[in-house]
Each structure stands twice: as structure tokens, then as C-alpha cells.
């Protein structure tokens, strides 16, 4: 009996469980293959919703569903913390002592925020004037603080890269501008966006478009700002090179790390706990029967649900190839596709991969209907509709018509000098 173990039942793990349960349904029915998936908590969060909770657009109830209901019946779901992964003996040990022996393991444990990594962040003022929105609790606390905020200095800071959904902090800034405009408070609120990057976003072409939006929305941009410490009592964020940014309300995007067990497994992950992974095949570097997907990997793609979705298509093929003893296909190109909420019922859409920067054009087809790298109402509606797509098509692991895993070049306006066939 072959045993496949998936660690983590977030976006990536759930999609893999659904895809593999379908692809291997005959083997599972015949009793020659079984699949187990492990996650430590019972709730599946629609993570794009975390951005909207602080502004009262979504409630917590609208952003969560039970984990088990998103998983196929043919897969065994174990709710437990993962104690360790031993790649030498091909075993996973759970917190309650249960040991799972696997033939193939997929690490899909995502990221977690570690606010303690910034000196002072979890000290005085944490949860009072210093917040985060990467957890349900954090997003809810921030919602209350924004409701009560009557004016002053709002500071948004990315502590260090990589982070989950690199556009989310910018979207937060745009939505804050909209939120305070609607409440008639915009003139009493200053908004500053401080990032360790040398531009507003990770991709230069995109940074230029976004910088223009920031300017129009009167959001001050502080680049190459590497936060060294924060004082919640004085309301000061100080960089390693001694620049001080004062605030009345700090929205911090804390340091991200992978699951703790990854750092404890020799050769599995990097210093941040992200799995050392082949960027094209998604096989872990530690051993051939270990794979990784989604935010848990160290591949140089954005940590985002769309990336996990595209990776899942490639990884499913490679898992099946591995089980059949065939060579893997280097099929993943780093494809990401993100809506960027810009407020006032508009959104931007970007589509890119390892080699191609976000370009202007149309998506998913050359004629549209959605414009790329340009604000539009249709993109905003797309973002809102995406919640239903997420639960009903993405998590079940269905392909999207017209949007293959490999990024399409059609519809994008390439700069003439770099265009290739």
C-alpha cells in the first residue's frame, strides 16, 4: 500500500488533496494507495478576506469555513500539530505521538508571522496602537482600531521580505485612503508606506505604476527602510540606519517564517524555514520523495494563492510521474496572477512569472475582458467574485478555462527590445 502524506491543509495542501484524490481515485478505491493530510487547526481561512476585515467589508464569519468540508472523502484528515519530519526514515511525527510513514510527502505548511522578530513590536502598544492583519484576531483588532481612529499618522511597514501576498500591504494603504475619505477624515490622516524594497513593489515595472497611484492618493513612500526597532509608547519606528518614522497607528507586516518543524529537519529548509525547492519541478532538494508547494517553498515566486493554484497543476503531474518512476517535468514558470485593490471600487490586475515582469495589456485573452496593470471597475468586481471562485473552483482543484498554469504571452504588450517568440 502506497502512502502519500500532505502536510498542511491551507490553499496549496487542499488543492493537492483534491487533485490527487481525483487522479488516483482508482488506486484509492482498489486499496493500493492512500492519502493523509495533516493540519493543526480546524478552520480554513479565505486569506484574501483578511485585507477586507479591517475595513469592515467582510466579517470574520464571511472569511472562514470548516477545513474538513474542503477536503475529499477519500483522504484521511488528521487535525494535529506536526512535531517533526524525518526525511532519513520517511516518517512524520505528530504532536500526539502518532507516526506516519510515507512513500511521498508534500510540504504545504505555508508561512506564519513572527512579530517578535522586530525589537519592541510585541511590547507596549501591541494590539493598542501597533497591529497586523495577517491573522483573523489581528485583522479584527485592527478593524476596531480603524473604526475608532479620528485622525493622526497612519504608518504601514513591511519589516522584511519575503511576505505572503506582497501586494497586500499596498492594497491596505489604498483601502485606508478610501476608508478615511468615505468617513470624511482623510484630511486629518497622513498615510506613510515604509518598505525595505527600493520601490513600492517587488517588480520594478509594477513599482512605477504603483508609485503613480501612491502619489495620487497622497500616500508617502519611504523606500529601503529596514526596521530595526519600534517603540509603541513613543510611537516611533526606527530603521537600522537611524531614520525615525513617527506614528499614531502602526500597521506592521511582521517577519514571515515557515513552519517550525522545517527548521528542525536537517537539509530541508533555509534559515527562515522555507523548504529548499527546485523552482521548476517543485521537488524538495533534501530527498527525491519530498515535494513542496505554495508559501512553504523558497522558490523566487510571490507567496500567493494564485501561485499555489498554478503550482498544483504542475505538481500533480510530477507526483504522478514520480509514482510511476518517470522523470519529472520542469513545468512551473513562476506564474502569478494578482488583483490589487486600489479603492473607490477599482482594482488593478497583474500577471507575471519568473522571467516576465507585470506588463500592460489584457487578460485572460488578447481582447480582454480585464485590463492589465491598469485600474478598472471590472477588475474590482473580479476580485470580489473571486471569493466564490476560491471555494467552488480553486480549492476543489479545477483548471480555469483560458488561464493555464504557464503564463500566456498573448494579450501582453511586451517592450519591443525584449520580445521573444
Amino acid at each position, binding site marked *: 500500500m502506497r502512502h502519500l502524506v500532505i502536510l498542511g491543509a491551507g490553499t496549496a495542501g487542499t488543492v493537492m488533496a483534491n487533485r490527487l484524490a481525483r487522479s488516483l481515485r482508482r488506486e484509492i478505491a482498489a486499496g493500493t494507495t492512500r492519502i493523509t493530510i495533516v493540519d493543526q487547526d480546524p478552520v480554513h481561512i479565505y486569506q484574501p478576506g483578511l485585507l477586507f476585515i479591517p475595513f469592515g467589508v467582510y466579517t470574520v464569519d464571511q472569511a472562514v469555513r470548516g477545513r474538513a468540508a474542503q477536503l475529499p472523502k477519500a483522504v484521511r484528515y488528521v487535525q494535529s500539530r506536526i512535531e517533526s519530519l524525518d526525511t532519513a526514515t520517511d516518517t512524520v511525527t505528530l504532536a500526539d505521538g502518532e507516526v506516519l510513514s510515507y512513500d511521498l510527502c508534500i510540504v504545504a505548511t505555508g508561512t506564519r508571522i513572527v512579530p517578535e522578530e522586530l525589537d519592541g513590536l510585541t511590547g507596549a502598544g501591541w494590539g493598542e496602537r501597533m497591529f497586523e492583519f495577517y491573522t483573523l484576531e489581528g485583522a479584527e483588532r485592527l478593524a476596531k482600531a480603524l473604526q475608532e481612529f479620528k485622525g493622526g499618522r497612519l504608518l504601514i511597514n513591511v519589516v522584511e521580505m519575503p511576505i505572503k501576498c506582497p501586494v497586500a500591504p499596498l492594497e491596505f494603504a489604498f483601502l485606508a485612503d478610501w476608508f478615511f475619505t468615505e468617513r470624511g477624515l482623510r484630511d486629518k490622516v497622513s498615510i506613510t508606506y515604509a518598505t525595505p524594497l527600493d520601490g513600492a513593489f*517587488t517588480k520594478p515595472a509594477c513599482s512605477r505604476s504603483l508609485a503613480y497611484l501612491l502619489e495620487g492618493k497622497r500616500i508617502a513612500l519611504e523606500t529601503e527602510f*529596514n526596521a530595526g526597532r519600534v517603540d509603541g509608547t513613543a510611537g516611533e519606528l526606527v530603521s537600522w540606519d537611524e531614520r525615525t518614522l513617527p506614528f499614531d497607528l502602526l500597521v506592521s507586516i511582521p517577519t514571515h517564517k515557515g513552519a517550525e518543524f522545517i527548521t528542525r529537519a536537517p537539509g530541508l529548509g533555509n*534559515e527562515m524555514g522555507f523548504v529548499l525547492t527546485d523552482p521548476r519541478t517543485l521537488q524538495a532538494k533534501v530527498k527525491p520523495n519530498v515535494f513542496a508547494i505554495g508559501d512553504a517553498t523558497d522558490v523566487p515566486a510571490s507567496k500567493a494563492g494564485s501561485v499555489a493554484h498554478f503550482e498544483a497543476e504542475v505538481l500533480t503531474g510530477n507526483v504522478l510521474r514520480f509514482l510511476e518512476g518517470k522523470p519529472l517535468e520542469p513545468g512551473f514558470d513562476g506564474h502569478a496572477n494578482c488583483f490589487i485593490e486600489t479603492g473607490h471600487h477599482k482594482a488593478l490586475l497583474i500577471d507575471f512569472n519568473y522571467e516576465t515582469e507585470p506588463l500592460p495589456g489584457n487578460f485572460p485573452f488578447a481582447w480582454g475582458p480585464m485590463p492589465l496593470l491598469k485600474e478598472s471597475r471590472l477588475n474590482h468586481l473580479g476580485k470580489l467574485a473571486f471569493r466564490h471562485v476560491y471555494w467552488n473552483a480553486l480549492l476543489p482543484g479545477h483548471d480555469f478555462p483560458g488561464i493555464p498554469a504557464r503564463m500566456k504571452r498573448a494579450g501582453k504588450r511586451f517592450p519591443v527590445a525584449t520580445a521573444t517568440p
Partner: protein
Amino acid sequence: MPALTAVARTAEGFLERASDWDRDLAAELAAESGVGPLTDRHWLVLDYMRNTYLVKGDGPTIRTLGKESGVDIKELYQLFPKGPAKLAARIAGIPKPHGCI
């Protein structure tokens, strides 16, 4: 001695070929970036960066530098203001670190 003008570089000033680098070129790269004159403390970082790159194929992050180069993060920012990982990589003649995605 390869002069700075004679070596191929990226739009951001990183060397196209790490093999073009030598210690004199580093001094020129440093001067161009407003760093230096290069002291033993600078060299501790630069040598560590270059060795890491030659062994692992990618430069270290600021976090690793602070832990393992022998120079803490605070001093790294004094030696290489603004972005130590990026700036030191450029002076050490290695490609821009992948850390900033």
C-alpha cells in the same frame, strides 16, 4: 588590473561575471557607491559574501550576514548604508541577492 569601465555590468551596477572581480576593482566599486575607504571590517563582510556566493550560488541575506559574518546588523548599516546585503554584494562582485523577491 581590470578598470571599472572595462567590465560588463547590469543596469543596477552589478558585475555580469563574478570572475571579473578583484580587490582593486572592489575599491573602485566602493568609491562609486560612496562607501569606504574599505577597512578590515568591510573586508570581513565582503569576503564572507563572496565565499557564500561561491559555495551556495547566491549571496547571503542581511539576516545571515548579521549572524555569521562577524559583523552585527547595526554595524553592517554603518559600513554599507541603506541596503547592506545589496550594496556589499555589488562591491563583492557577486549578483544581486535573490532575497528581495
